[in-house]
């Protein structure tokens, strides 16, 4: 079976059952969310851009916002057979990319940290907690999630690739 590689663009969600490699490049203030139910092999990856949808505007893409993107990701995975309570999650991103200039010290360009909080809150509403995260700072990230192994790796434009999590490693999970 050929393993398909999928690039997850801004405000996109991709799900698969079985095999696949998700790459989420260009994560600045955006958050890459990797999720898997290791029993049914249903996995997904989302690239969330903003904390919350606007009450006065139609949501054009659910994955754009944390409050709509997380429910959409979980819903899509459940439709493929995932069991919500078994979903393991890793998140990365939420950097403050603009780091120089007088307005950087203020809260004007802090989408990244607001995204981290909004994604975590949205996951918590489903009783989910990221088992690993690499968030904040000022460097953009690229994450790669190999469904078969469950391994999520992260790199920045100036650093080499490092392992963030093995989402199939259920050590410490009392259900196993």
């Amino acid at each position, binding site marked *: 079976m050929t393993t398909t590689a999928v690039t997850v*663009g*801004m*405000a996109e969600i991709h799900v698969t059952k079985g095999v696949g490699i998700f790459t989420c*490049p*260009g*994560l*600045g*203030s*955006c958050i890459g969310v990797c999720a898997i139910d290791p029993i049914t092999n249903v996995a997904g990856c989302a690239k969330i*851009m*903003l904390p919350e949808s606007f009450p006065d*505007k139609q949501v*054009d*893409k659910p994955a*754009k916002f944390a409050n709509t993107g997380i429910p959409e990701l979980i819903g899509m995975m459940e439709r493929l057979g995932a069991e919500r309570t078994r979903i393991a999650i890793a998140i990365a991103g939420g*950097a403050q*990319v*603009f*780091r*120089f*200039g*007088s*307005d*950087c010290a203020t809260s*004007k*360009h802090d*989408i990244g940290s607001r995204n981290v909080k909004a994604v975590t809150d949205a996951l918590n509403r489903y009783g989910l907690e990221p088992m690993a995260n690499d968030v904040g700072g*000022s*460097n*953009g*990230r*690229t994450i790669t999630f190999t469904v078969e192994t469950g391994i999520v790796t992260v790199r*920045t*434009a*100036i650093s080499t690739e490092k392992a963030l999590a093995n989402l199939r490693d259920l050590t410490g999970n009392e259900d196993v």
Partner: protein
Amino acid sequence: MMAMGNVSLGLVELSAIREMANAGLAHATKSLSEFTGHKFNVDVPYAQSVALTRIPMLLGDGEQIYVGIYLPVKGEVEGHIAFLLPWESAQLLWKMVMGRAPRTPAEVDEDAASAMLEVGNIFNGSFLEAISDIAKFGFSTTQPVLAIDSCSVILAAIVSEASQGDADSMAIDTEFFDDEHTTSGIFLFLPTVSGLRSLFSALGISKAA
């Protein structure tokens, strides 16, 4: 007529926008040339309606390191302006204005950052000045901010900022370069949908957008 989301533009509107952008860019490159002591030029700008999330794909989703200066525009015509240079071009620009350049992104200190913010300010400010002269509108700029990262990360961060208002925009972009083609970069102007409407009415094209 080309339409996407809230932004519908006909040929008349597109050519008015491009003409205006051309004039703005001519003024901006003249200011940049004066500031750096090197002659700069620009290509004819593209103007296209886009879903904001497609911008990194259209302008550069590579992993090459860029220096990006971003500035939200407030006032009658709201929008977002950015000026992006590949790392090697930024180094040459630093040499032009400071006589020296950081060797690595980690070496960029406050001095180097403020010099580059000034370059971005001069270019973006001159562009806005020229188009506000033509269209007779007022604008106020906020403080520019600077990032050093891959092109895709910087563009994605700008798109996230812009997406707080709209899903679609008109992207006006071009490439600028010096006479010897050793320094080049990307200029991007993203008026908001309401900013675009104000711009059209200021230009006497009231039907569009």
